[in-house]
């Protein structure tokens, strides 16, 4: 804490130009870097999604060969998960956590710099595999052996970039935990922390728990391929299913890593625009913690078809169904917060409401899939694709949009263009549904996922889905335009920005000073 009080005015000076960004240890600069990186990856991953939807627009092979198609699905997922959604949340954490808890900066600023600057290298390496002999990884983002071992020259680069992305995440998580634990303003007890801080604290623990597991799994792949081990090679006494267990032990908590911070964002925005306190703060905290805990017990629901014993299937079925309880608590709380409020519908609120609805739809399909005897039918079909895109796009991504609109005036000191913001919202919401809703039908009708071509009975809904996809993709250019416009200027934002907003970040000027709180505020 002592650093907070020794910073004085001349520290406001910092290197200018490019070097400012390379050497920066400032939480806002690093937050901005993370967000820009995430946005870039969002567009690159999005472009790959456009390739996928273009190929699937009609039956037959039109644009790409099947191998490249598989590379596209694989890379789209890896880039969106590790390049777009996770860094976007870390960027938001960097910007917001110090301002929300009344700290001048993150606790470990140099590590903060490093954890960001690993990302561009990892990302470049991953994207670079597109140009290697044998093509980019095409075995799915889940990297199941033995298939993934058939990857060409890209294989070690895939593994190494996953390692780097993991290291970056772990360092980011450590920083967040240390900051939250040590740098809260006097009087801010744990149970007074904003929910975004709470959800990120829990997310950070999840990250530290599972990223090393992923690193271990991919290292075992590496030694299987290059150093003669047989961890996953049945012919050598290994077990290909072992990888799936390890992967999903990482992978399921990973799903919550991508949604818990979104819960925190929505829990901040809805009370603001309903002008009413969050209905149940403490139950929200406990629900988040229970979801995080349960996330370690459900991994094999991704593997109901691998041939588990009945008792195993029952256990994972029950545990998975159980997650519906704390998730329900969250949704009910948001609705109860809106109930009898005095609502206005600015863009962040619109995105948050859409989040609650559409995430819940994703939750419903999740509940359906939790039941093993039906999951035998749903598994590896477009029903699953629809499910996880509902929780990730109008789920996680919409929450990120909401957060950006909500805090952008604070960050830049400029209001965004509300009309354009609303337009962005309506177009996104309509087209995200045109894009993903028909995929439920495709899955139920029997279309497997990850196929470049399909039988003609699936043609109609694929066409609709692709049109939705192109329109959704184009709409995001509008988002880019709005962002650039706001950063460059616009009507000045007040410090309070939103009438109903509460929290320490709104006591700072808009834009906030370089070091957020040089004097720790008092929290009552």
């Amino acid at each position, binding site marked *: 804490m002592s650093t907070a009080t020794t910073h004085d005015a001349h520290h406001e000076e910092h290197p200018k130009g490019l070097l400012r960004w390379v050497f920066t240890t400032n939480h806002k600069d690093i937050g901005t870097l993370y967000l820009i990186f995430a946005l870039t990856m969002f567009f690159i991953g999005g472009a790959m999604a456009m390739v996928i939807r273009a190929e699937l627009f009609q039956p037959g092979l039109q644009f790409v060969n099947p191998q490249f198609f598989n590379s596209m699905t694989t890379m789209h997922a890896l880039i969106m998960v590790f390049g777009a959604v996770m860094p976007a949340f870390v960027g938001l954490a960097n910007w917001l956590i110090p301002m929300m808890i009344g700290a001048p900066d993150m606790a470990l600023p140099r590590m903060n710099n490093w954890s960001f600057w690993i990302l561009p290298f990892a990302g470049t390496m991953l994207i670079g595999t597109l140009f290697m002999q044998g093509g980019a990884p095409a075995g799915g983002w889940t990297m199941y052996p033995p*298939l993934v071992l058939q990857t060409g020259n890209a294989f070690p680069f895939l593994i190494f970039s996953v390692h780097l992305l993991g290291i970056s995440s772990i360092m980011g998580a450590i920083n967040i935990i240390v900051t939250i634990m040590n740098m809260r303003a006097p009087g801010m007890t744990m149970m007074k922390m904003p929910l975004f801080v709470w959800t990120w604290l829990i997310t950070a623990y999840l990250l530290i728990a599972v990223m090393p597991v992923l690193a271990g799994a991919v290292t075992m792949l590496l030694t299987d391929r290059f150093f003669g081990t047989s961890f996953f090679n049945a012919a050598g006494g290994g077990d290909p299913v072992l990888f799936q267990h390890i992967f999903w032990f990482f992978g399921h908590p990973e799903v919550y890593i991508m949604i818990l911070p979104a819960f925190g964002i929505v829990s901040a925005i809805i009370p603001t625009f309903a002008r009413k306190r969050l209905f149940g703060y403490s139950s929200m905290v406990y629900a988040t913690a229970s979801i995080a805990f349960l996330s370690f017990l459900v991994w094999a629901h991704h593997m109901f078809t691998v041939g588990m014993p009945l008792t195993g299937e029952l256990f994972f079925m029950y545990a998975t169904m159980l997650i519906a309880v704390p998730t329900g608590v969250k949704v009910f709380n948001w609705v109860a917060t809106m109930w009898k409020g005095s609502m206005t519908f600015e863009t962040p609120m619109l995105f948050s409401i859409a989040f609650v609805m559409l995430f819940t739809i994703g939750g419903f399909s999740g509940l*359906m899939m939790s039941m093993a*005897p039906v999951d035998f039918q749903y598994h590896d079909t477009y029903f699953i694709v629809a499910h996880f895109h509902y929780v990730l796009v109008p789920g996680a991504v919409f929450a990120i949009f909401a957060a950006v609109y909500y805090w952008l005036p604070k960050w830049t000191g400029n209001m965004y263009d509300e009309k354009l913001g609303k337009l962005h919202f309506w177009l996104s919401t309509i087209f995200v549904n045109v894009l993903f809703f028909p995929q439920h039908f495709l899955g139920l009708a*029997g279309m497997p996922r990850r196929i470049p071509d399909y039988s003609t009975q699936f043609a109609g809904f694929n066409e609709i889905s692709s049109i939705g996809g192109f329109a959704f993709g184009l709409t995001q250019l509008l988002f880019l335009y709005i962002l650039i416009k706001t950063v460059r200027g616009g009507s000045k934002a007040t410090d309070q920005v939103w009438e109903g907003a509460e929290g320490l970040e709104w006591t700072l000027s808009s834009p906030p000073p370089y070091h957020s709180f040089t004097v720790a505020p008092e929290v009552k």
Partner: protein
Amino acid sequence: MFVSKIKRLLTAVVGFVLLFSVGGASADYVLNLRQGVTPISHDAYDLHMFVFKICVSIAVVVFGAMFISILKHRKSKGAVPAQFHESTTVEIIWTVVPFLILIAMAIPATKALVVAEKPGQPDLEIKVTGYQWKWGYEYLGENVSFISALSTPTAQIYNKQPKGPNYLLEVDHPLVVPVHKRVRMMITAGDVIHSWWVPDLGMKKDAIPGYINEMWFNIEKEGTYRGQCAELCGKDHGFMPIVVIAKNEADYRKWLAEQKSKKAADSASADRDWSMDELKMRGKKVFASNCAACHQASGMGVPGVFPALKGSSVATGPKIAHINTVLHGRPGTAMSAFAKQLNDIDLAAVITYERNAWGNNTGDLVQPSEIKAAR
């Protein structure tokens, strides 16, 4: 104002969706899970509908409350925020009620799962092996086995011919089973993980190298049922369909007898000497359905992934090395062992073909007897 906006939008969306569904009306639309033709598939369907209805009811309540709130509790209507928050009673209610609903779901789900996984005395056992990118079937105890691969012509896939009615869901050798019999499938894989799935049978099981997974079905109705590999298995994952034909007992017996006599004829001719032309002709076909997916019909392969056989040192070098490569594959690569997938004649034919096609003019002739000796 806001409401009318929503109305207009909804009309737009519905109109939009209708437009496109009419536009592509040639395809018949399936909206829901298929009911299928086995007890397991009916269970799955019933459970699916049960939970779907629960979800819709919850959605009506939750989204209903949200919409009422959105319409009524808005500042522009002069709504004043209420002050209530934190209620342990309410929190307990909305924890316990969902929990009870879950129990109501878990009971039928458990029952269905127990039935689906119940071992029972099978009437017929078939071993299924997934290969990149075809299925091998072996009728255990019957000495009948064959490979089943996509039969849709490439020209249809590349849009040079109109697509047939069973585009991508047709195979050269369908699996034939009797109706009203409990069929046990023993599922494994020869290279990477695949997944055997026919929606109408209500079950999918992964085909995993080193594992033998079991699943069973009992088909109620004669007919042809189509499915696909459901686990990503590489380049042609989308092109390894499954076709199951369910016949009555008598027709099934007849089919089985035909298979046996075909096999007997084959093994008789395996002992004679084959001419170059015979082998090359047969080899070209075997190559097209078993090797061309990777090595390409041109023999040029795919650089960096699948080696060219045209001018390859193996295909133009000593015969025995070539034979061994094809028989035993290259462990750890996509080149799988074909010893168990193809018979001696087919192997002799394809190797002879490779040694004498695309300018590989070795003039070598590989006889089925040489394969037999090398096995």
